[in-house]
């Protein structure tokens, strides 16, 4: 007997038993809930949970036909659902991954992605919170250079998103948010669908997204998906939103609507004359300095900035929102202190040193092209001598040529001397940083300097990427590791918010997986507690990544801020700073947390001498294609 036959027979028996029970109950004259309760109390057969078959079903049962009639088949079974075509569209624009926490408002699309699309390009990445999904997309873009999509469920899923999407907005990171929504009230199945629906669901994210649309037809979806991708990827990049009607996904379509042709937008270059003016100032300057915000979109951006800086022997201040400039290049020791001309590239807000006496400042960037009416991420107004709208990386080739044309033999001599000064400053900075790294070398809790030195020792022979920000660990990697390639460091969240670290690291590691780049995540403890479920996603999808906990058992920056408040008010100095800022009672056992999610881990490390062998052991796990976590009790910063 096949499983199907067995099921059918069980079904028949069930129905017959049901009929017997109904007949018995009818004979007793029991009708309604009260009578049912009475019969149960008397030990009579209780009514089964299933509904009785209809007369039509019963008739078919007796005739030996167990399938639907053609009319019923037409009503129930689906051919050529709209969501299959939506998958074609998503594939056409080139989305490789979609982060998803399941929801019925997009069950049609989810089924098509899995069964019609083969769960490949895009592959669904299962997440336990929509914020994890959006932040994975954030990290993925910074490593892969292409956007992911995030698929969320109506009002209840979308309201988990804002912080993660806001960080992407601040960090100029594109992603495509797809929101399932029961747009048409007549199609809502019951109260839950009403709770989960909105008239204008993208409005939840509108303050910090570039564009949104609500799609009612698959043809509209086709065009809007292409437009969404194009808008998201045009500098200044940012997240976009499409609401996708549930009915549209589930209803069959006739024929095949047009697939979109993706027409990427060439980024805007700054005005030629403005760039010539900037070149005049840079070449005539005694000490020009470049401040780099989010300049580089890829390795070419770094190479162009190196070219410009070296032509001028100009110091570079890399704000490390991306890798814009190699830390091994001595010009990275730039400082605006003694600059007479400052060029800000994709800086946000006021340029450091700008408008101080004797300094001339110019900016090239796309910041003015994308401003929220509400959130204030645009920072303080930047008064400068020349503000030029344009994508900095796209503008660099013209600026470089303009600078070259203006260089003379005498200016080249002056420039060469300038370079020697930066080189000496860089050497002194490195020496000072190395010296600082030795302090507390053998301490327990482990110093962050020792932590970064030990990690470096284990990865330096590999192709690696630091997929976490190091700002809360005294920026040791940016001070001393040679971060020279675009993919070697992600920068920060953009919003200075919390909860970004773990999922962004997993997103970047996911992108690095296919290239065999070792992803290293130095993970802040307080940050991981926002989205600990991220570890499960890493384990489930076999994302190889080495996570090393910077476990200082506190929201440490806030502890220091509270200490200052207590001191200024001269009260609670020995206790107040630790209330609601620390996580040491009980101390969180991150090794157990990791193991619980299926991530390899060893026991807590408190002695710095344990670090090297533990990292080696963890790397062996990562090399096998799985995530590993080491919990290290560390100093504050």
């Amino acid at each position: 007997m096949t499983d199907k036959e067995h099921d059918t027979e069980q079904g028949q028996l069930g129905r017959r038993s049901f009929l017997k029970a109904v007949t018995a109950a009818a004979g007793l004259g029991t009708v309604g809930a009260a009578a049912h309760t009475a019969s149960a109390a008397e030990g009579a057969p209780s009514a089964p949970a299933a509904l009785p078959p209809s007369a039509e079903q019963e008739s078919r049962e007796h005739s030996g036909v167990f399938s639907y009639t053609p009319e019923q088949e037409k009503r129930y079974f689906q051919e050529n659902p709209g969501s299959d075509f939506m998958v074609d569209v998503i594939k056409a624009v080139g989305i490789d991954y979609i982060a998803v926490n399941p929801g019925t408002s997009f069950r049609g699309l989810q089924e098509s992605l899995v069964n019609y699309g083969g769960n490949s390009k895009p592959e669904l990445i299962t997440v336990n919170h929509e914020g994890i999904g959006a932040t994975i997309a954030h990290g993925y873009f910074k490593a892969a250079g292409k956007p992911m999509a995030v698929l969320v469920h109506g009002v209840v899923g979308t309201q988990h998103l804002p912080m993660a999407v806001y960080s992407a907005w601040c960090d100029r990171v594109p992603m495509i948010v797809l929101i399932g929504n029961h747009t048409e009230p007549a199609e809502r199945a019951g109260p839950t669908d009403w709770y989960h629906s909105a008239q204008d669901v993208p409005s939840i994210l509108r303050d910090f997204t570039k564009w949104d649309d609500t799609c009612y037809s698959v043809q509209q979806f086709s065009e809007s998906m292409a437009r969404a991708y194009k808008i998201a990827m045009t500098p200044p990049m940012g997240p976009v939103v499409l609401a996708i009607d549930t009915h549209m996904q589930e209803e069959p379509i006739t024929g095949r609507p047009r697939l979109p042709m993706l027409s990427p937008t060439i980024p805007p270059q700054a005005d030629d004359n403005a760039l010539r003016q900037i070149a005049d100032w840079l070449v005539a300057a005694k000490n020009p300095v470049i401040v780099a915000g989010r300049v580089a979109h890829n390795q070419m951006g770094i190479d162009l900035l190196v070219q410009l800086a070296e032509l001028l022997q100009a110091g570079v201040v890399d704000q490390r929102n991306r890798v814009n400039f190699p830390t091994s290049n001595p010009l990275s020791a730039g400082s605006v202190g003694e600059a007479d001309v400052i060029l800000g590239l994709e800086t946000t807000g006021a340029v450091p040193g700008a408008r101080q006496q004797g300094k001339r400042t110019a900016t090239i960037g796309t910041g003015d092209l994308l401003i929220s009416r509400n959130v204030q991420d645009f920072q303080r107004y930047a008064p400068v001598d020349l503000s030029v709208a344009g994508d900095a990386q796209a503008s660099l080739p013209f600026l470089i040529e303009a600078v070259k044309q203006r260089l003379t033999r005498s200016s080249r001599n002056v420039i060469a001397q300038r370079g020697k000064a930066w080189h000496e400053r860089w050497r002194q900075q490195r020496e000072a940083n190395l010296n600082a790294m030795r302090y507390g070398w053998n301490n327990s809790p482990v110093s962050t300097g020792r932590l970064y030195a030990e990690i470096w020792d284990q990865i330096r022979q590999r192709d690696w990427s630091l997929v976490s920000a190091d700002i809360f660990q005294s920026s040791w990697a940016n001070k001393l590791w040679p971060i020279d390639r675009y993919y070697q460091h992600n920068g920060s969240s953009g919003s200075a918010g919390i909860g970004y670290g773990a999922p962004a690291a997993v997103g970047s590691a996911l992108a690095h997986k296919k290239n065999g780049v070792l992803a290293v995540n130095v993970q802040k403890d307080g940050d991981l507690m926002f989205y600990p479920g991220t570890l499960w996603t890493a384990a489930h999808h076999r994302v190889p990544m080495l996570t090393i906990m910077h476990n200082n058992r506190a929201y440490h920056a806030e502890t220091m801020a509270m200490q200052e408040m207590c001191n200024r008010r001269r009260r609670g100095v020995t206790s107040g700073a630790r209330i609601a800022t620390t996580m040491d009672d009980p101390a969180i056992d991150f090794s157990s947390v990791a193991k619980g999610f299926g991530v390899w881990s060893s026991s807590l490390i408190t002695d710095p001498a344990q670090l090297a062998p533990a990292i080696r052991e963890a790397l062996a796990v990562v090399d096998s294609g799985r995530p590993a976590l080491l919990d290290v009790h560390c100093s504050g910063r």
Partner: protein
Amino acid sequence: MRTGYWLAVLLLLGAGGANAAEERSGKQLFTDFGCVLCHGSTGYRGGIGGRPIAPMQHSLDAFRILVRSPANAMPAFAPQVLSEEQLEKLYQFLRSVSPSPEVADLPLLKSLGAGK
């Protein structure tokens, strides 16, 4: 009545705090007063970056000025919250801390410095 209640509580807390503080070592005070937050467990850091504060090289008078009326981002510790006796204990603790090993004695840092 309410004022009297709080006064009594404060007196009790104050008395308890003072007694407890007297028994605390300089190292314990370093933790309790939050010095450890910026300076690391043994004063090996100079706040947010900078040189370590231990082993303490300054005189007690100089240390007192740095603690009571710092000119940088460090919070000031008024006599009402950190007694003179406690300040001196902290000073003695910071003077007793062993120096960190030199870069030359740490092959790992030497190789990192050499860019290897």
